[in-house]
């Protein structure tokens, strides 16, 4: 797996400027080092899914969220997923914040791109496994999106044993460390029509976001 160059640039707020040799070199170096220093790991488990009003019941895990309920309505199953690229990115960012702030910013962006690529890869595997059973995926949905409370991270972490299995822990404020980590729920449905391929970025309500993907194209 390689760091996605276009995504890295997008996270850096790139708008087609000319990239000089210096900048190019920095981008290449940061990406290469990040690939070397990362240890991608993931864990996911599937549960039966039941949506009642705003309540989603997944085994013993119950969440109240209108947005998530909408996302999972009609799904027979839901996959709980956690993934990380490990501590490398965080250490690089710390180090380069001291000696090379440009490289720190690039590493930050490249790390964000890298974990997204990795989650996409894991999701592709889940999609394949689901397809074999005649199931289709809804877009993934993470704690903190819309009204899906970030506090739910705690329970997800216990269920998935994130600390033991992939080395990710929560801070007091329920943020994940290593920071380049993702948790998400993915609904599985038998109805292909109700599955959805819209990229998660476009679901975000922050329409004036600097990093928002362009509507056209992809």
């Amino acid at each position: 797996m390689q760091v996605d160059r276009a995504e890295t640039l997008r996270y850096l707020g790139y708008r087609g400027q000319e990239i000089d040799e210096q900048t190019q070199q920095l981008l290449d170096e940061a990406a290469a080092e990040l690939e070397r220093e990362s240890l991608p790991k993931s864990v996911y488990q599937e549960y039966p899914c039941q949506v009642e009003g705003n309540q989603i019941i997944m085994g013993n895990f119950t969440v109240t969220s209108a947005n998530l309920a909408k996302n999972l309505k009609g799904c027979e199953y839901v996959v709980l997923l956690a993934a990380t690229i490990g501590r490398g990115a965080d250490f690089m960012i710390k180090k380069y914040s001291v000696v090379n702030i440009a490289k720190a910013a690039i590493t930050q962006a490249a790390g964000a791109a890298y974990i997204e690529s990795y989650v996409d890869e894991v999701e592709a595997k889940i999609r394949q496994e689901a397809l074999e059973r005649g199931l289709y995926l809804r877009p993934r949905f993470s704690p903190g999106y819309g009204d899906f409370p970030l506090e739910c991270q705690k329970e997800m972490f216990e269920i998935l044993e994130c600390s033991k299995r992939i080395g990710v822990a929560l801070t007091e404020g329920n943020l994940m460390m290593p920071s380049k980590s993702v948790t998400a729920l993915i609904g599985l449905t038998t109805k292909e029509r109700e599955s959805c391929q819209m990229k998660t970025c476009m679901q975000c309500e922050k329409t004036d976001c600097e990093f928002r993907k362009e509507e056209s194209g992809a």
Partner: protein
Amino acid sequence: MNVIERAEKEILFFDGAMGTMLQKRGLQAGELPEVWNITKEDVILDIHKQYLEAGCSIVKANTFGINPFKLKDKGYSCEELTAQGIKLVKRAIAETGKDAYAALDIGSLGKLLEPLGDLSFEDAYAAFCPVCAAGEQAGADLCLIETMNDTYEIKAAVLAAKEHTSLPIIVTMVLDENGKLLTGADLEAAAAMLEGLRVDAIGLNCGFGPDVMKEFLPKLREICSLPIVLNPNAGLPVVVDGKTSYLVEPEEFAAVMKEIALDGVSILGGCCGTTPAHIRALVDSCKGIAPLAITEKNRSVVSSYTHAVVLDDRPKIIGERINPTGKPRFKQALRERDLEYIYKEAIAQQEMGAHILDVNVGLPEIDEVEMMRQTVTGLQGITDLPLQIDTSDVAAMEAAMRLYNGKPLINSVNGKQESMDAVFPLAAKYGGMIVCLTLDENGIPKTSRGRIQIAEKIIKEAEKYGIQKKDLLIDTLAMTISTGQDNAEITLEALDYVRHTLGVHTTLGVSNISFGLPQREKINTAFFTIALSRGLSTGIINPGSGAMMAAYYAYCALSGSDSQCSDYINYLSGQPDQPKTVPSGTKEITLFEAVVKGLAASAGFAAKKELEIKEPLDVIDQALIPALDQVGQGFEKKTLFLPQLLMSADAAKAGFDAIKEHLKAQGDNSESKGTIVIATVKGDIHDIGKNIVKVLLENYGFQVIDLGKDVPPELVVEAAREHKVQLVGLSALMTTTVANMELTIQMLKKELPECKVMVGGAVLTQRYADEIGADFYSKDAMGSVRYANELIAKP
């Protein structure tokens, strides 16, 4: 006979999984198993008995998840659940009449330690203490620290166990498929630290079944001089209908475990998915196998949180530059607690090829213990090289050894009784290799014989503490040849004898040899080469000296320790352009151009050139500021993007540093434009945006007080008041932490109504910023500079 003594005579067996058994008995996901010690003690008791009947000799108490974090708001104390957990094991042993040991089972806290996480080392330590104390009190026979994946957390747990019990300690860790801990640490690093801490046995558990775990065994046996423990899962986890299952059957499990026992593992058992049937099969299959004798591997090794550095026939470089001696700029950094300065020295030395970094932060006028604490903690987030803790202050030494994530080098002990009495007990407790100076109450012997005698005395004294020769590094003291013709030979003769006759590794502060002579590097280099060929194991040198590093690589190539001369060739090809002279291809570049193009090395050089002919203020006004403005405008017009802005910022910083140095040399301390406090708000740990703002503000002449990340509102108010600032900058990345930003603003507005607040961060918008009462919303890094300039710098 304690469990370890017995393991030398016969193979011992841990029991199998507790969690798996409890799930079968109705434990729900997310439910705390240890509460059952009280609510369903019959079930726990029954499980223990089943394992005892199956033939296990060590029973893990149901105490794995007990810690203050997991028990928060659960209505039970760590002490009562622990005591009850041990009591149930004891009862099961008594009621079955078996000869078995009760293990206090200590698991991970499930939190990440600093520098990446938000749990401090001492808080982690404190979390383990009550469990350890209660466990021994209730009658545990040993501490099993298991399912660990972070060496730092292991160290906290081991220290808690050592300081609150007198029990044998066994540590088992989880590896990933690459044979590393989840922190990226390799087995050698972990084993080095654990042997240094003098735990009684080490090994692996969880993660894999016996087949995969077996693959890691040869490595472990090669490096480890302690009994080995293996508690694998019944294979890899498989999720069936939302339930995690393990599918390796007892016979299959036992068959591989038997091979493992024959390979020399003396304590075996099971982890997730194993049942009494697995343990029974295991015990049956190992009947008649005697444990292999444990052999001493005699490895001289230090470690960091990621890797070990082994002292062998290939010499190693210890970077000497983190040391204030003779360095006014470094002393100033220490007085100002400018840790960044120290970090830069560390990163530079690592890039130049150092294997270990010496850390000396002693100055008479500072609190060395606190400074050492902060420096070691900070360096562990910046560099993965092992550290050499260099201090004569025993309290500072202990503070650093305690906090150090690995097995450190300690600099130093000497032949004085007082010194040995102080340092050896620390080394015996925390582990470490120790630099031993061959001097004593009578000073430095003038003969090699005298120095050898002191070396022998130190070796003997160390033995009393169980510190073996392999953990000593003898310094036969390089003394300048400007005061004595024979000085070099005396040092070298002693060095040669220590290394080759006594069989102990050696070290030298190489550059002392040339003190008082002109062009010292020439002497240093020659002496270094000679010393290497006479048996120098580690040279304490300045890796910034190209000549010394070249001598080192050349020596390694010549002495046959550099296969195909590949390191030598790599070294030459990897030589960065030295900015000491003009960077290649940039001969005519001006300071203005260097900043616009983002060339830091050239900018520093160009600034020095311009300072030769211009006043410092003119250099700033005519080159640095116009260049920064041009780049800033380009960024705002989107003709440049963030990395380019930041490269220019770093280049400008190099220019400003040159000017500051120039002014300091003239005794001038220029005033800053004004002071700004910045912080990432409480609960938020993503601070790169704030760091970017800091660099830019500093370039525009502001003094920035950076409070860091996860900063409570009170601290922000306190700092703003103390420094009498007009402006505070706050950043927050998450929606959830914007609430804390609002709280901070409210508190600031109440306490310091004159103070303005600017905010920024990924989730913020102008509207959001208005809602929480901020005075200014900075949509990007340049915005903060513009606002600060308007507010503060208006003439």
